[in-house]
């Protein structure tokens, strides 16, 4: 009896079973969390509804901003006037908060068409078109200012209005959600 109490260092089969059972319970419990967390992610129907959408550009007059939705997100399609294009191009890119030349924000040869997400990059409000200091957009929520290229020029927004993936199917048709292949 005295001998058994002095030998404490030797792991027994019981110790092994204890650790194995505990580990199985811990890993099993942690694994079970996974399906619950994943159920919070966008579901299959939502993903399917997020397929690319076609937009006809023909009815959009010069100077007009049209709002379309893709994946529940607002997108502005702006038919820019030559003045607006010039204003967007004549900017010292290095002076911008999120430096990006206007040419990088439109498709080659289609500078009149600006396609940007319509939610302010600060907290997601919808900026008002043709307003603000640069006559681009002005966000009424927290005062962010965007120029005619959708680049942030003032206020709390950290980055430019992002460009959604899109491609021109023809001169008067864009497919939003589809990456340009050519």
């Amino acid at each position, binding site marked *: 009896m005295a001998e058994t109490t002095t030998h404490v260092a030797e792991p027994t089969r019981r110790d092994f079973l204890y650790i194995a059972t505990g580990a199985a319970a811990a890993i099993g419990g942690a694994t079970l969390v996974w399906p619950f*967390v994943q159920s*919070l*992610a*966008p*579901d299959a129907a*939502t993903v399917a509804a*997020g397929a690319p959408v076609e937009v006809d550009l023909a009815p959009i007059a010069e100077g007009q901003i049209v*709002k379309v*939705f893709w*994946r*529940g*997100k*607002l997108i502005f399609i702006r038919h820019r006037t030559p003045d607006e294009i010039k204003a967007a191009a004549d900017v010292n890119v290095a002076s911008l908060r999120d430096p990006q030349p206007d040419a990088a924000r439109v498709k080659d040869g289609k500078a009149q068409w600006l396609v940007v997400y*319509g*939610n302010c*990059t*600060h*907290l*997601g*409000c*919808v900026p008002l078109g043709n307003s603000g200091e640069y006559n681009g957009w002005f966000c*009424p*929520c*927290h*005062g962010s200012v965007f120029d005619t290229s959708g680049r942030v020029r003032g*206020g*709390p*927004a*950290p980055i430019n209005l992002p460009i959604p993936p899109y491609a021109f199917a023809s001169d008067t048709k864009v497919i939003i959600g589809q990456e340009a292949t050519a």
Partner: protein
Amino acid sequence: MSQHPTTYVPKSAFGRWFESRLPIAGLVHSSFVAFPVPRNLTYFWTFGAILSFMLVAQIVTGVFLAMYYTPNAGMAFQSVEHIMRDVNYGWLIRYLHANGASMFFIAVYLHIFRNFYYGSYKAPREVLYILGVIIFILMMATAFMGYVLPWGQMSFWGATVITNLFSAIPLVGETIVSYLWGGYSVGNPTLNRFFSLHYLLPFMIAGVVALHIWALHVPGQNNPTGIPIKSGKDAVPFTPYATIKDIFAVVVFLIFFAYWVFYMPNYLGHADNYIPANPAVTPAHIVPEWYFLPFYAILRAIPDKLGGVLAMGAAIVIWVFMPWLDTSKVRSTAYRPLYKQFFWVFVAVCLVLGWLGSRPAEGWYVIASQICTVYYFAHFLIVLPVLGFVERPLPLPNSILESVMGVQKGGAGMPAGANAEPQSKG
């Protein structure tokens, strides 16, 4: 509770039989009947009872609203109008619930500032106090999600702005936001889960409230002098003294509540929320409910997205550290002449922040918000720690009895801190 062995003796045979199997009557007796409360408590100590009442009222009205409400993006707005127009007394139940949220916050802010003024957060009540901060955070989450349910313009855009706060988190922010939404934007899945959580959280609050009350019954209540109960003469039994006083305060509070419900039920809301949610149009001026305005002003004061979010979070989380940031050994501000002034400046700054939060984010409003935000944090990080060392507190009374009845047998007050409990001595 555990410190107060009950003297309760069941009178009936059934009472004895039941008590030996579940001693709940004895627990209630020791906690809410025989429990000693300081004899000098003011009406500022009735807000715990008022808040408990409001929690129950919100749960009861909420359970009934859930019977008539439809948590679907296409039907939610209509179902709320259905409650207002068709359901018998639906208008009353909804106005009680919507205004009840505001009443809940009025009571909790008074409760919190009473705690700040009388140093109730100091040892030995730190855990009690931190549980209170947790309840407040749960209340904010519950109120926010509840405001989304009518699916009006403010509901939708409030949800968009607040969920987008999480996108400020580096790297994983966007993923977290899409998991909050259950989609690529605020939509039907978002409404469904908010409804589920809005129903769950009040019961979590009730659980933490039970812990809050339990933690309160270990040291007992603080009081306007901040000094502990030293003898039976300092205290009165909870029943009838505190019970009746609490009930009276609840009744007075209900009159105030009823005034809002019956005479200006929409005053605290926003007209924009009677316009159905429209993802293509932002209301000209997005404003949260009044009880979030000071924190909203802090969010907008920082000209950086992540910084603003962190500052807003820190504005609440900093409360948790108050028991250790405040270096003064004197609890009650009544005996802290210097701190008393800073306390009222702090109250004023919080009110001004609230007002600034309701203004558009432009011009001098932004600068004023920034100044107030700096002061808000300075109060916790500079005023509280420094005053404890430089302030000369007024002499404390020898006992609660003495503070109420005057000095009985001569003898001057003791130097500050001399009669502090052992656990709060440096």
